[in-house]
């Protein structure tokens, strides 16, 4: 495939963008030091530019005013001139590689939190509370409106003086501009509300002020929603009218279009579609906007694959594609397209680990790429071949940690062997992918399969490595990533020993057939519990999911739990919280589960034919303890070196003393159950210096 449309340059305002691919504005949660674009921020965007991305619009929800707090999400603070030199560093780093960089600027109005930092009073056109952030706010006054309009203009000036290529005004996700637009939130009767023109006024004054400040040779774009999907919100036809109205000014250089509003939990999930969504679910909305405007239209939402992007662009639906999570997973996406290495692209699987962390105020990280956002620490996206001696590296366990360890070791030029007891790679990813609408998570494994094969890793599938096999291979370095087993034995009364309960692995892995009337007890509240519940319901079982936590799936992030809830409610699954599983016993053909209320101690019973317990993983430590004392380093990891991304000091002993045995390291759940990212991160930072 030639990717002619994808790689065609485009003119936006006075700027030429080298291709049609945009990393759209998202909160990176990297702007530390009071909202400054410091080293981590710069390196994160430099990597995308180095990798060929045409345009990066950085700083999702970067604030223009001090009463729009930036601290919650470490977003960029454009309310002070202090930002200008930081922008210069950022612009230089991106321009050096031929990329362009703009920034999203906004006032978030009511869409924030007031209970921290400067303890601001949040503002909104009519003082109506926002559900997602549970935020109350005041009704904005005329003086404040004009102050904020000026703040926008000053913020744009700072972006321009900092050498950035443009600004994107956020009128999406129910920020202040579109809070004024939406009759759902704007109930004013003065010149700022009511009629169409009045609701448009604030945004229009912002646009005019910004344009007057920066002139014609600086890009000013507008990011809008294509349809709020609320009965009382803005419809697609409303949004076309709004887009055409602003376009007619001739002062907007581009439109970014996103489907769906986002001021409820359910609509928010649409904005960053997870793996349950089809590809580009809201492209039609952006295409509709493109019909009525005269400038380029950018659209992002579940565009992850360059072939898909090429198809969208060649079809003329939009002018530029946002591939934002695609770049978080692989900032070298475009470079790989150009190198003819499309099948080496680490494709985003839509796990939404990145955005779910962001909504918790945590830094954006990729579930499968531990180097993303850690460029400033020296973690590499491209592993350089070692100049040192070739080692024999044996990895036991083909889950995410083991696969990453084998990959990195092989990229370093070592002779890597990977053992996996199952017939296929993936570990718990394989189990997770069995649930309805979760199959795409297997994309993580698929990439590793391609890479490990390309790198010539000796993959011994269906082979359980024991002490003797490992010794025969005479490894220099041995990595155990053997994972663990469902931890059903923690409470004897559950009856695991008597076979009264089964694990989510048993059900998802197909080892145990789904019952007809099933109780799922999930004390972990991560993806596993809701996944097995959805799976059982999908197979026709009547299911109740019970947790002792505050709600089922409590630890599933904000853009993921809604798609599970939609599915579970749709299948009439009963969701019960605050009950712990006390005991299971058999009564005739049936099983009785005794549940105990967390707060009252009151017990109640359920009569079912199957009890599934999700209690996480118990590490598989047997092989480790069998080999620990034979190893040079007694299995110990030097934490200071590991955390500082430095080589393990014990590696030097391989050169000093030949034949003195192997180095032993443990990764992933066989140490303690954590998650995919943790396993991959440990593998990368440990193995990159082998």
């Amino acid at each position, binding site marked *: 495939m030639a*990717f*002619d449309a994808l*790689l065609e340059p485009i003119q936006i305002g006075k700027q*030429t*963008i080298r291709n049609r691919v945009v990393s759209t504005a998202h909160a990176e949660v990297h702007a530390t030091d009071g909202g400054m674009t410091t080293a981590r921020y710069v390196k994160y965007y430099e990597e995308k530019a180095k990798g060929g991305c045409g345009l990066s619009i950085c700083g999702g929800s970067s604030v223009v005013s001090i009463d729009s707090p930036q601290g919650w999400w470490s977003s960029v603070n454009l309310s002070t001139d202090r930002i200008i030199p930081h922008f210069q560093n950022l612009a230089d780093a991106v321009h050096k590689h*031929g990329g362009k960089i703009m920034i999203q600027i906004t006032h978030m109005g009511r869409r924030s939190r007031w209970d921290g930092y400067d303890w601001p009073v949040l503002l909104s056109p009519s003082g109506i509370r926002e559900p997602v952030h549970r935020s109350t706010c005041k009704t904005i006054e005329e003086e404040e409106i004009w102050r904020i309009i000026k703040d926008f203009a000053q913020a744009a000036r700072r972006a321009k003086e900092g050498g950035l290529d443009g600004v994107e005004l956020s009128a999406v996700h129910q920020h202040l501009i579109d809070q004024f637009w939406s009759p759902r939130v704007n109930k004013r009767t003065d010149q700022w509300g009511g009629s169409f023109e009045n609701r448009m006024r604030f945004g229009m004054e912002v646009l005019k002020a910004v344009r007057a400040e920066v002139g014609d040779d600086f890009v000013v774009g507008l990011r809008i929603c294509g349809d709020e999907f609320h009965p009382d919100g803005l419809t697609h036809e409303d949004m076309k009218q709004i887009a055409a109205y602003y376009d007619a000014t001739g002062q907007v250089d581009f439109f970014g279009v996103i489907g769906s509003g986002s001021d409820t939990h359910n609509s928010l999930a649409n904005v960053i579609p997870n793996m349950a969504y089809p590809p580009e679910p809201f492209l039609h909305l952006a295409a509709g906007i493109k019909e009525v405007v005269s400038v380029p239209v950018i659209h992002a939402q579940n565009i992850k694959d360059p072939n898909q992007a090429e198809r969208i662009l060649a079809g003329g639906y939009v002018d530029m594609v946002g591939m934002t999570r695609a770049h978080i997973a692989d900032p070298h996406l475009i470079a790989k397209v150009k*190198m*003819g290495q499309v099948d080496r692209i680490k494709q985003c699987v839509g796990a939404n680990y990145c955005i779910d962390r962001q909504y918790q105020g945590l830094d954006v990280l990729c579930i499968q790429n531990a180097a993303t956002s850690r460029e400033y620490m020296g973690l590499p996206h491209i592993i350089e071949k070692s100049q040192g001696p070739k080692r024999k590296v044996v990895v036991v366990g083909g889950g995410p940690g083991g696969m990453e360890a084998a990959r990195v070791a092989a990229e370093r030029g070592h002779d890597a062997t990977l053992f996996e007891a199952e017939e296929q790679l993936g570990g718990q990813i394989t189990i997770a992918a069995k649930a309805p609408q979760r199959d795409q998570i297997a994309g993580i494994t698929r990439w590793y399969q391609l890479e490990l094969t390309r790198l010539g890793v000796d993959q011994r599938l269906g082979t359980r490595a024991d002490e003797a096999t490992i010794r025969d291979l005479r490894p220099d370095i041995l990595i155990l990533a053997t994972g663990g087993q469902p931890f059903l034995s923690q409470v004897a009364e559950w009856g695991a020993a008597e076979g009264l309960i089964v694990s989510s692995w048993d059900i998802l892995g197909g080892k145990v057939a789904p019952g007809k009337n099933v109780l799922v007890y999930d004390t972990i509240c991560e993806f596993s519990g809701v996944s097995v519940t959805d799976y059982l319901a999908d197979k026709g079982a009547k299911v109740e999911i019970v947790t002792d936590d505050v709600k089922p799936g409590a630890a599933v992030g904000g853009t993921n739990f809604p798609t599970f809830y939609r599915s579970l409610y749709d299948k009439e699954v009963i969701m019960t919280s605050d009950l712990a599983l006390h005991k299971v016993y058999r009564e005739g053909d049936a099983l009785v589960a005794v549940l105990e209320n967390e707060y009252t101690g009151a017990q109640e019973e359920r009569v079912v034919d199957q009890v599934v317990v999700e209690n996480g993983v118990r590490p598989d430590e047997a092989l480790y303890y069998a080999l620990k004392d034979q190893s040079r380093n007694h299995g110990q990891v030097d934490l200071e070196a590991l955390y500082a991304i430095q080589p393990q000091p014990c590696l030097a002993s391989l050169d000093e003393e030949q034949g003195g045995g192997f180095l032993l390291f443990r990764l992933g759940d066989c140490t303690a159950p954590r998650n995919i990212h943790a396993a991959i991160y440990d593998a990368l930072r440990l193995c990159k210096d082998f």
Partner: protein
Amino acid sequence: MLDILLPILIFSALALAAIGALRRVRLWRQGRPSPVPIAKSLAAMPRRYLVDLHHVVARDKYISNTHVATAGGFVAAAVLMILVHGLGLGASEGLGGVLGWLLLVASACMFVGSLFVAKRRRPPPPRLSKGPWMRLPKSLMAFSLGVFVITLPSVGVLPADLGSWVLALVLAGIVAWGLAEMVFGMTWGGPMKHAFAGALHLAFHRRPERFSTQEGGPGRSTGLKALDLDDERAPLGVGAPRDFTWNQLLGFDACVQCGRCEAACPAFAAGQPLNPKKLIQDMVVGMVGGSDAHYAGSPYPAPEGGYKPVGEHGGDPHGPIVAHPFANGGTALVDAETLWSCTTCRACVEECPMMIEHVDAIVDMRRFLTLERGNTPNKGGEVLDNLIATDNPGGFDPGSRFNWAADQNLPLMADRQEADVLLWLGDGAFDMRNQRTLRALVKVLRAAEVDFAVLGNEERDSGDVARRLGDEATFQSLARRNIATLSRYRFTHIVTCDPHSFHVLKNEYGALGGHYSVFHHSTYIAELFDSGRLNLKAWKGGSVTYHDPCYLGRYNGEYEAPRRVLQALGIEVKEMARSGYRSRCCGGGGGAPITDVPGKRRIPDMRMEDVNETGAELVAVGCPQCTAMLEGVVNASAEVRDIAELVAEALNEDSAQDRASRRAQQSEEALVS
């Protein structure tokens, strides 16, 4: 008795040879006129033979020494024999005795040579033709031995009335056999024809610039000759043997069937239906009229395996070379697929000791197929249509030629009007792989602070592919428009990373009025390095070999600069067995990947095997086409990188200030020394 017989034999042989020569000349003159200065050409012949031809022959020491002894011995013996035995000068005292002794030495020398000729054919290597060529060593021995023995009485070693008349008759018979092969056969079409036709071919060669002169070094002439499209009498290319110029026909007749071309031809090795030697012999068959049944060398490989049978093809001077698709049961002198198998790599021309121009002939015949018949096979028609419609072979939007450089801020000639260097991007600008090379080259030029600019979307395809596919009209149209564009700007040099553009701009635009100083990027980078404008880090990678692109090496003689650049990087090149002027084509030239004639193997696969034999982990190249072909090899063990990429990676990215101070220091040093 011999003194009566010998003059008769000698002079009748000479007379028959003269008749044969006239007949041969008539055959050649069936071709189209091509004016040559007769006397000057003949005068140039000995030097061309002794210097240029010998230079080629001497690459094979065995045959070169053998040929010196045999041919030298023969020429001397023949002249002396006419004097001694024809004119009877050997009988006289004084001078005659010396002549006789000289004749003995010459014929002995020739005999020794002919022993080695015989040894060479025991058994003959596959590239040599058999048939009449197998009898040649015996004929050589018969002539030299016969002349030696009959001369012994002349110098008094043996009595004048040696033996009986029976013996005299036997000797006369042997001498007659020798004379028949060596003199009469020379013009009537035996193996010795090569000497007669070859000598005249050297004299009247269509490319006199190819030969060295006393004043200068070895000449070079590799640009295709332009067709005069306005001359309504001239055929568009060669459809029948008579459409060749007379001196082209003469050149075919000079073929000695040594098969060096066959051994060098990548298409033959790949089992594609081409053997340059057979092709030249087929042209001779066409010139004389008849069939190829008497051809005694390796025939054309058959795509399904083995060889195409001989005896099924034939023609005459006025008949078609390639059968019209709807006539003659589909065969004539050669099949079209033979002509389309050629990669125009010039390996055959480079190897040919008779300096025959195979590639000229093939392109002449392709011109006819494309221009007169519209029969360019496979993707050929599409590519030519693309070139006509979009000025590039891929049919890309001409406005997208410069898309790759959207982030490079390259200065445009249209804005600048002048620059020291005009960087010619070539059609690789549309290719993502080559764009990496272009980026690297831009980085290198910038590091050396070269004042350069590009044409951007004003550039068009150089016309290389159109011309090699026989579409001279499209070539000339592209060339003329490129020349017009170039004429608008001022620049000192053109630099390009594409040897095909390089060759066409340098050697083929001249005939259409475009004269430029053109550099291949490897040459230019080598000069930048030599003048201290590049500061390079030492090579840290593995072992490296270098693949000579045909259009840089054989076409333009540039073998050293790329190697100098690699050396500057600290790379010690692990040379392939086939390298330098003997480099094997990647398979990508002459439109061969477009016409895509099937064979048993792919040429780039064979080339990658050459690479593998060196054990190199990386093969350095200097051509977008070679890069594409070699990278297309499945499971290749070596990485393919353009020289520009290797240099760009090795750049010490110091500041402009460092460079300025370094240059100041260098100029100071220059002043001191």
